[in-house]
């Protein structure tokens, strides 16, 4: 506990990162194994904590930028739901989508800004000539949803949100099949989470839709 913080501070300051190792010859080794059956070798800290990460691919950046608009439209839809529906289950569904996706927009924005990449505004997808991401509602569909009321609204909302979510799955699939994409563990984790979470919500909404149609 006493030695380490000193070591730690020294390390943080030293670009070479070998201050501790030099000072303490008994420093535990860092091993890099080889492929199965191959021998292992001892490496130095700078080789281990290689800050050179695979570059963010253009696909990673485009995925995050596109997903902000995609999420932003989901929030517009849930905002409508709050004043249109009478169903508690629908309100709870909207609340979950809202909490999750508003927070994810913050995360995506932070990710983009920390890389100096463009972080689209939440209304950027309304612009002239903007290409909508898969599953997003056209302005006409959005108007149709805004005009609906009562059970007809609930039904339309579920149908639209299911295809909206399915669009997110398409975006994830495209990301993972793009050369060089999703090497960054944060992008990998986020895209995997979007896939898992939205699949579950699709299942939930499909069940709710089925109930409505009874």
């Amino acid at each position, binding site marked *: *506990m006493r030695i380490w913080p000193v070591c*730690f501070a020294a*390390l*943080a300051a030293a*670009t070479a*990162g070998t201050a*501790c190792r030099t000072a303490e010859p008994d*420093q*535990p*080794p*860092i091993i*890099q194994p*080889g*492929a199965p*059956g*191959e021998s*292992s070798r001892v490496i130095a*800290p700078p080789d*281990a904590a290689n*800050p050179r*990460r695979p570059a963010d691919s253009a696909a990673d950046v485009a995925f995050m930028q596109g997903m902000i608009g995609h999420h932003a439209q989901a929030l517009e839809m849930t905002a409508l739901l709050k004043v249109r529906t009478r169903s508690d*289950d629908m*309100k*709870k*569904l909207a609340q*979950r989508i809202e*909490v*999750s996706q508003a927070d*994810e927009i*913050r*995360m995506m*924005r*932070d990710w983009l*800004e920390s890389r100096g990449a*463009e972080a689209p*505004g*939440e209304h*950027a997808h309304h*612009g002239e000539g903007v290409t909508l991401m898969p599953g997003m509602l056209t302005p006409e569909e959005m108007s149709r949803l805004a005009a609906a009321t009562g059970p007809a609204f609930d039904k339309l909302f579920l149908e639209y949100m299911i295809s909206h979510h399915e669009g997110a799955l398409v975006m*994830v699939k495209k990301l*993972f*099949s793009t*050369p060089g*994409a999703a*090497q960054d*563990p*944060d992008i*990998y*984790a986020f895209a*995997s*989470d979007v*896939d*898992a*979470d939205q*699949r*579950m919500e699709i*299942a939930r909404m499909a*069940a*709710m839709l*089925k109930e409505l149609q009874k």
Partner: protein
Amino acid sequence: MKTVVTRMLCASAILVGVVAAGAQERPAAPPPGDPRVGLKAGFKNPGVAASNMELVKNLPKPPGFFDPKEPAGSETEPEKPEETEGAEKPAAPPAEKPAAKPPAGGKPAAKKPTAQRGSGLNFVNSDMAFRGNQLFIGNFSGFNIYDIANPAEAQLIASVICPGGQGDVSIRGNLLIMSVEQTRGRIDCGTSGVEDPVSRERFRGIRIFDITELKKPRQLAAVQTCRGSHTHTLVEDPDDKANIYVYGSGTGTPRPAEELAGCSAGKPEEDPNTALFSIDVIQIPLASPEKARIVSRPRIFADPATGAIAGLAKKGDHGPGTQTTSETNQCHDITVFPALGLAAGACSGNGILLDISDPVKPVRLDAASDKNFAYWHSATFNNDGTKVIFTDEWGGGTRPRCRATDLPEWGANAIFDIVDRKLQFRSYYKLPAPQTEVENCVAHNGSLVPVPGRDIMVQGWYQGGVSVFDFTDSAKPFEIAYFDRGPVDGKRLITAGQWSAYWYNGHIYGAEMARGLDIFRLKPSEHLSPNELEAARLVHYDAFNPQQQPLVTFPAGATVARAYLDQLMRNNAIQPDRAAAVKAALDSNDRAQLATLAAQLGQDAAAATGRDAARLKALAETLPAK
């Protein structure tokens, strides 16, 4: 706004109700001024709040497991070095809200980065395994081996670099098994990633290392799987001593057949060989581990009546708004309890109970769904196998989901009783102290604290810290101890916190994703007597993989007897004169008197009911009468 207020009122009403109806073991609700609220931010010197447990050792992550320019994983606000960890009081106002308001529309301009891009999840710690005096902590970039013979003086033995995440580890003898899921994973443990979407250099699956030489582990085998391995669980077959088995749970997108033959992401109705809707069962021959291979991919979600692979449809339908279709195509994590032949699978949309009498062919016994659960994440049985706790990893673990505005039944534990091998929901347990929006927080990994006569679990909640809670009454869980640090940074969420917190041979070990290894001691309190704690410390594991749950047996003797006696007295479930007599006989070690008392307690037990009857019986059997 109205809905939120209503729900918060509801939540308070429930809390009040629980307290009023609570048994003696149940304490008052957490005080309104919970010291975990408003802790000072900081990577190295955050504010700390602790109750009934103390940090005895922190070992920051070793060189090689952080970028020296950004040890926290990302750029942080400057910290004042003179302040030391351990301040029990909040030292700063709650963290400011992050991020300025974004532009309302139009075409944004590319800007200078607002912060270093950081190493993010590159070097974060993950799950742990134990063997003798050694602790193995997985990391998204490899694993570290620690000597914990003396926990207060724990030391690093060696570090192993082999990126691919999540790096969950298990131990069996001299074999260390590790999960790899990311597309950057390489067969040769290299750090350069694999950019081509189809590559023979990529590795996703289960790695097996030989750790005979702790300072020079070797990779023995690497079993490729279609979806990689997000987590895994070791299983042993009592009838097959030559092999061990691994349940590999993959949650990633199946890779193309061009990269790994036979892999398919097809819909089950179109492709009966789809990699979806299964787990991987890998056999490791102990005499020749390098020959490890997949021996089955059981269809544990299949409908036994129709044979449909995506068979959880219509099962476990808990009413409108719950899941009734078959999107459950993966398990996130499986916990086996070999002594009972049971496994609990936390499988995205469902919690399932499996009969694993034949580990290669697990058979589903039941499936639960829950409309408050976003993602079924992990499972822990109680020691009798009569209860199981499932966690909901809403937000995936990297996002803040313990804010005051997040519903207490979302991102929480769900506690089930197991009745006739079926799951019956009893209650939720969520970290009682709200966290900020710059702290990733949700229910995560934990293990039992082996106190005889009670069900107690210790659990990591990421930046929500560690929470120890009692669920002896599965309908009324309550917290008995905690440890929490302030956020790594006051303005930006930097992913950190307790990935897992496990009890092992008398201490609690926490794998802090960014801040390294934490070792804690529980302290006696009004919720946990010195005798109960001492009895827990008697329990010794030779090795421990938390997803491979051992049946704990308590040694008969005075310590365990005193623990039961404390519980019976706390619950007013023993006559005061009987309790006094037992205590006196234990103190004087009067064997004849203890034998007489044992017989009387046996009769008391016959007349009592429920948990206390079991405690009376256990006390009678535990008294050192012979």
